[in-house]
């Protein structure tokens, strides 16, 4: 995923801690090898190159189901096919019986940026919770962060934005930030125009699910200002904040 996942969790058992870290790493690597279109022979790369049906693993198939659903709920501003030259949607068809997918034509390209980190964070959160870990901070690339439970010396986790000094309070919740990269490059596409979204201040979305936060921050950043509130209205418990 061309990023870095950091885990901080409270666990008095050193052996268990190491085992959990290894499992988390395996989990994320496994998902990365499915979602990364730049990895040759990954299912996503094969799907992008194929004119026919491609068999998918359970995670990727489920992800494509979710992506189509959230594309609709975000009024088209979250779109894994945003880099496509063909603007007709849906960009792909799913075949549940065979766990296969096929692109709708040759002008489509799927890219899971704005989705995969959130998906991986949810997987790791489930892994830790299933192993009895109550308090943890999960940071994926500094732009997607989950706070499980609370800080050992506080009632929550707190993280500040590097720009603007905005504090995000996390208590079994997450946030995600979208915007131009630190080098100033605007990499988020407006799916409706197939051009980079107009450069503007960052957008942060906070809420329960890391995956939804990442999807929404991407969609809201790509959307015109007048559309943003309408997108957020569909997602109760999620809040958008904006950099200046």
């Amino acid at each position, binding site marked *: 995923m061309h990023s*870095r996942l*950091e885990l*901080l969790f409270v666990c008095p058992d050193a052996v268990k801690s190491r085992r959990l870290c290894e499992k988390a790493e395996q989990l994320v690597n496994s998902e990365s090898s499915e979602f990364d279109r730049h990895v040759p022979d990954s299912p996503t790369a094969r799907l992008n190159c194929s004119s026919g049906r491609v068999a998918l693993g359970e995670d990727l198939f489920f992800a494509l189901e979710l992506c189509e659903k959230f594309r609709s709920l975000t009024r088209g501003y979250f779109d894994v096919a945003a880099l496509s030259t063909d603007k007709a949607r849906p960009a792909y068809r799913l075949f549940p019986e065979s766990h296969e997918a096929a692109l709708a034509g040759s002008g489509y390209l799927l890219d899971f940026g704005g989705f995969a980190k959130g998906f991986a964070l949810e997987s790791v959160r489930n892994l830790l919770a299933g192993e009895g870990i109550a308090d943890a*901070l999960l940071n994926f690339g500094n*732009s997607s962060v989950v706070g499980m439970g609370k800080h050992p*010396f506080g009632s929550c986790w*707190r993280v*500040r934005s*590097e720009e603007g000094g905005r504090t*995000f309070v996390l208590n079994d919740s997450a946030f995600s930030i979208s915007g131009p990269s630190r080098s100033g490059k605007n990499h988020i596409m407006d799916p409706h125009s197939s051009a980079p979204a107009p450069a503007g201040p960052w957008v942060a979305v906070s809420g329960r699910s890391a995956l939804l936060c990442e999807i929404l921050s991407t969609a809201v950043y790509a959307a015109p200002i007048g559309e943003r509130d309408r997108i957020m209205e569909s997602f109760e418990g999620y809040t958008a904040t904006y950099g200046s």
Partner: protein
Amino acid sequence: MDRRSFLGKVGELGAAGVVLSALPVVEACSSVKKEAVSGEKVRIGLIGSGSRGQFHLANLQQIGNAEVVALCDIYRPHLEKGLEMFPHAKPYTDYRALLEDRDVDGVIIATPLSEHYRMAMDAISAGKHVLCEKAMAYTLDECLEMYRSAQSGGKVFFIGQQRLFDPKYKKALESVRSGEYGPVVNVRNYWFRNADWRRPVPSPEYERLINWRLYREYSRGLMTELACHQLQNGIFATNELPCKVMGSGDTIFWKDGREVFDNVCVIYTFPSGVNMTFESVISNKHFGMGEQILCKDGTVDLPNGRYYPEVPPKKTAIRQLLGEIEKGVFSNPAFAGTSWAPETAEDTSGVPIMPEASGDGSMEMMQAFCDACISGVQPEGVLRQAYYGSILSILGDEAMLQNKILEFPEKYRVD
């Protein structure tokens, strides 16, 4: 070279090269058992209540098991300054009278370098515990005689080399000695100032008394006043004594009648071939003071208590947060942003070795001295370490004065 082979190589150097205990000398500074000194007080007499003496007095005001009972200075304003700090102390103008005072258990000597030998030897003869300011003495022979007398005197004897007691130095030097950062490949010391090094004089007849650091009769200038602090770090870090000393010094800017150099550059070469340098200029302060141990795997910046690995670790938000949690801090780390980018530039901020450590070790040294006076236990290695610091500073000065490459004289090796 890994740590094991590095340590093995140190061992192979044998007795000729390795001169110091394999155990961390500085550990001994804190070895006095606190329970052995609880409830007791040491009665201190201070000889020389000038600026450095007043600094010690200020520290003594904060030490619970010390009582300053006597003060001595031949310069009345300094004596009065000391008495302002300890009004009940008995005033003396002759240090020998102070040494005869039976109410004095230990003395602190903070006088010009040229006086150290005579006063310290008299104090040992009087059966007093002694903390003598650095450098130890003016000549090599005086240092050796003081060392031997202190060893056989049965009393506590410290030299004012406070770095030995600075927790961050202790931790950093122990890590260096353990081979944690790889073998030592170079030691750099420098001390740059931009001032004339003069103290104000009320009238000309006090010039040499007050500005004694500028005159050869009393001082060896930058070497004995500054270098000896730093040179001891090098010998501790390398666990060797230099075999060769060379250097050059001159008076290049402050040509005001002073007799000591205002610009020195000295190189000490260890048997392993590792070099240690000391540079000092007092007409440019840009680089300030530095003491750096260069190891194969990283550089230790002693005064700033930081370690700079050759391959910097990736600095991560979680790592910072973890460090704060270990200190019990509920922090609000600032790392959230739009996207992560791989680090391509070197992390130049270094790694703090002991962020909680403050001060320069002077307070710890004074506390250790007071504790040692009460317990009567001389901390192992402290005197030897300070002795070598002084010996090297004098050898450096001699190398410059004689304009020769000097070999370390075997007669000054002590074990």
